[in-house]
């Protein structure tokens, strides 16, 4: 533990810290471009030069390890002059185009040039210009602005795990790019623009649209997957201009997956902004009163045993408040046909340990062996995958994979042993006959991640039981460590299971509801943002669609109740770890659309059975009464294990990942033009429409 003096203050730090980090601990900020705390050290921008006593020249503080008795001056005339020199060199070839640059106002180079720039240039020769590069449909490039700090190269190589960007050529001709003009194959590419300290890499979707000081910033959470990434929603007026990640060490660190970031244009398209009622086979605009009356008429016509003939399904982005209101409305109507497991996953709600990510996402870094069962975390939960890669990169982390990927060739951004495709292989691990079982058993903190590809199938309960046995037989569940994890893929799922938005006594599950609707046994089906069920098989059922996008559900609906998207409501979501988080309203829902719980509250009054809350505070108090855990915000811990799963016959089919197209996973993505372009490019799929030859 060396002790050194920085600007007259003594500090003792760990032996392998750098001078820059030590200074940061003292609250002394040293300017930098190439240094980034989550990336390896490059030491090439020279902006962090400091004066070190008894050294012949200034040293780069980001790359200089601390030593006993060092005396550092970060603001002496020597350091100041060195930085001014470095800045002058950086600005030699940097264009003076700040007024038209998207980074303007939030640019490290601009900010630091204010402190260290000369104000005018002594350079009279021609400035270099560099041809712009193509990095895919998400990142806009202006490579003349690049100061070759190589942050993007290191991000792609180290964090995203796609070695596709590099520094080609040499000297002043050095260029950053892919060399072959191909799109990056990463679901984390948006972060390249975030790490870029200048305006070389910017967000294409946000190009030339606004300045940072015009934006109202709202801190919220993401619902495109079950990770619950913390985000910041930037709005100008009612329009959402962009979505950025917000630091949360436990979840997304400072990254965000592309779907969460760039699907935001879909929030303005295909929106349901007023109620509709189907009249003579055609959806016609209606008032709220008419829409409610149409549903009431239908319900009243069902007679006394209405409870058994109505059902509700909650979709993948539903918030806890709306699900609670819907559950209580249906309970009041006498129905137990409720389900939040839209994909048909065979998970029960009784024991939390059986449906959450017990180890926590940050806990992946403590694990020392991993078994993935029926999931492709790269598409299902990109940032969980990034965390797995982070742990894998640190070394000593064998990863086994059973199904969920297309085969041993699928790139998860880390190396793994492909053990097999289906339940038979998992059974081998559970009984110890597979070689990987020994790897897990020998590890101190082994973990298993069971994805929805393994659970959303007929033998899902048996697979869950088998996964539990595999976890127990390899010592994953101990007093200090719970390595049993279920990776949910829908933001609503854990919240729904916590609430018990599940079939009650004699109730039907999703498959039963859909089959019942087809057979005419379910007369009224209420879809709370549920678009991913097969609408063609719903028979003659009267479908109420409550949601925000005109997707599959709205097309089938007999009554449409326009709801609010996740950016438009103060609501609660529980992520796959069981972490309760509040999202906040950044903009108002369009037109006549309303927050979902208020719609349900209003309808309950129409039915003469008003729900017992009139505002969000009352609803939240009630919610915490019903499920106390929902009152504990932003905390994680292993769930209570109890018993879950059900021994039974195992299917022979391999586990398949439920996500075929990362960019088209939900109604917001399907409405987004940016996501459609990505989908077309990366998967060759059609997106929202066929390519016409004029759209690319």
């Amino acid at each position, binding site marked *: 533990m060396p002790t050194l003096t920085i600007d007259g203050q003594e500090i003792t730090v760990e032996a392998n810290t750098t001078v820059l980090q030590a200074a940061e601990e003292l609250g002394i900020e040293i300017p930098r471009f190439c240094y980034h705390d989550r990336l390896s050290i490059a030491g090439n921008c020279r902006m962090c030069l400091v004066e070190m006593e008894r050294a012949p020249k200034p040293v780069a503080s980001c790359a200089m390890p601390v030593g006993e008795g060092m005396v550092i001056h970060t603001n002496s005339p020597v350091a100041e002059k060195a930085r001014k020199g470095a800045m002058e060199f950086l600005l030699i070839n940097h264009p003076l185009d700040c007024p038209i640059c998207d980074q303007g106002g939030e640019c490290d180079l601009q900010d630091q040039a204010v402190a260290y720039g000369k104000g005018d240039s002594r350079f009279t020769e021609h400035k270099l210009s560099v041809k712009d590069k193509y990095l895919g449909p998400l990142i806009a490039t202006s490579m003349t602005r690049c100061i070759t700090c190589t942050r993007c190269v290191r991000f792609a190589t180290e964090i995203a795990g796609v070695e596709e960007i*590099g520094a*080609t*050529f040499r000297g002043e001709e050095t260029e950053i790019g892919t*060399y072959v003009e191909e799109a990056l194959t990463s679901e984390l590419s948006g972060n390249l623009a975030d790490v870029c300290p200048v305006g070389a890499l910017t967000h294409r979707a946000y190009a030339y649209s606004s300045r940072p000081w015009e934006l109202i910033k709202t801190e919220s959470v993401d619902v495109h997957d079950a990770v619950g990434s913390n985000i910041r929603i930037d709005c100008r007026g009612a329009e959402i201009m962009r979505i950025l990640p917000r630091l949360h060490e436990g979840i997304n660190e400072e990254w965000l997956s592309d779907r969460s970031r760039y699907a935001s244009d879909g929030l303005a398209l295909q929106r349901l902004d007023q109620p509709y009622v189907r009249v003579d086979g055609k959806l016609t605009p209606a008032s709220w009163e008419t829409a409610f009356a149409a549903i009431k008429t239908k319900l009243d016509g069902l007679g006394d045993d209405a409870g058994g003939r109505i059902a509700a399904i909650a979709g993948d982005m539903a918030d806890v408040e709306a699900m609670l209101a819907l559950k209580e409305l249906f309970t009041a109507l006498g129905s137990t046909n409720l389900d939040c497991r839209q994909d048909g996953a065979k998970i029960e709600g009784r024991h939390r340990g059986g449906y959450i990510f017990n180890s926590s996402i940050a806990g992946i870094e403590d694990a020392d062996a991993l078994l993935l069962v029926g999931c492709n975390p790269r598409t299902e939960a990109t940032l969980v995958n990034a965390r797995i890669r982070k742990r894998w990169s640190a070394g000593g982390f064998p990863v086994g994979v059973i199904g969920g990927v297309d085969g041993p060739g699928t790139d998860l951004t880390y190396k793994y042993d492909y053990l097999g495709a289906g339940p038979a292989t998992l059974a081998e691990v559970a009984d110890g006959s597979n070689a990987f079982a020994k790897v897990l058993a020998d590890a101190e903190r082994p973990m298993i991640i069971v994805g929805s590809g393994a659970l959303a199938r007929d033998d899902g309960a048996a697979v869950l039981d088998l996964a539990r046995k595999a976890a127990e037989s390899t010592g994953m569940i101990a007093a200090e460590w719970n390595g049993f994890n279920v990776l949910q893929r829908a933001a609503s799922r854990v919240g729904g299971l916590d609430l018990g938005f599940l079939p009650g006594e004699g109730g039907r599950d999703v498959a039963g509801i859909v089959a019942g609707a087809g057979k005419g046994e379910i007369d009224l089906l209420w879809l709370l943002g549920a678009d991913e069920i097969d609408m063609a098989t719903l028979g003659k059922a009267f479908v109420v669609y409550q949601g925000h996008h005109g997707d599959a559900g709205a097309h089938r609906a007999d009554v449409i109740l326009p709801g609010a998207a996740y950016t438009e409501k103060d609501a609660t979501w529980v992520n796959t770890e069981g972490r309760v988080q509040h999202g906040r309203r950044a903009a108002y829902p369009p037109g006549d659309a309303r927050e979902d719980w208020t719609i349900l509250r209003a309808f309950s009054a129409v039915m003469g059975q008003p729900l017992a809350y009139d505002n969000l505070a009352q609803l939240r108090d009630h919610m915490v009464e019903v499920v106390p855990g929902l009152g504990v915000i932003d905390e994680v811990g292993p769930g209570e294990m109890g018993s879950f799963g059900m021994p039974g016959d195992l299917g022979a089919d391999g586990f398949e990942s439920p996500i075929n197209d990362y960019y088209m996973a939900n109604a917001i993505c399907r409405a987004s033009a940016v996501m459609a372009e990505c989908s077309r490019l990366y998967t060759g799929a059609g997106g929202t429409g066929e390519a016409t030859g004029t759209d690319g």
Partner: protein
Amino acid sequence: MKRVPAPNEIQPDSFTFTPENLEKAKQHIAKYPPRRQASAVMPLLDLAQRQHQNWLPRAAMDAVAEMLEMPRIRVYEVATFYTMYNLAPVGEHFVQICTTTPCWLRGSDDVVSACKSKLGVELGETTADGKFTVIEVECLGACANAPMMQVNDDYYEDLTADNTAAVLDALAKGDKPKAGPQSGRRGSEPAGGPTTLQDFTLQDSRGDG
């Protein structure tokens, strides 16, 4: 001078090593410890360039990347960093004239203008018949015999405008002029002939002892 990679139209679709070169490549790879095979990237790129008319198409870099199990971009970085890898087609005779200070002081400007007038091209250009490409390079380490130029693997030294033209003429005819000093001196001995060690008897008597 900025090196510009060959446009896509003339990039071949594929590249495979000949059996002899594949054997040589394996020998290079065997020099490095297991899982450190990427260290062989430079000799393999050189092999590929020699096999492919003295330039390195992207397909060859990709083939090397695959062979060494390294990301393609890491190979592109190496190939673009080192100027001795040609990224675009060059003439049959690749003429590199040194114009760094020692050669320049000894008259490399004459060599450059001799090449330009003889071949009718500017620096960085290839003759219409595809026989010659002339470029200017930094020091090639033959300063004792300045000025000099390198044609493919051979050094031609002690050049003047006249003997440069003679070398180019011979190459154009398909002959292979003798490499080394063109002034008649041996190696880098003094220009006017040896001034020391002229008494060979001394050497002979020492040899007996």
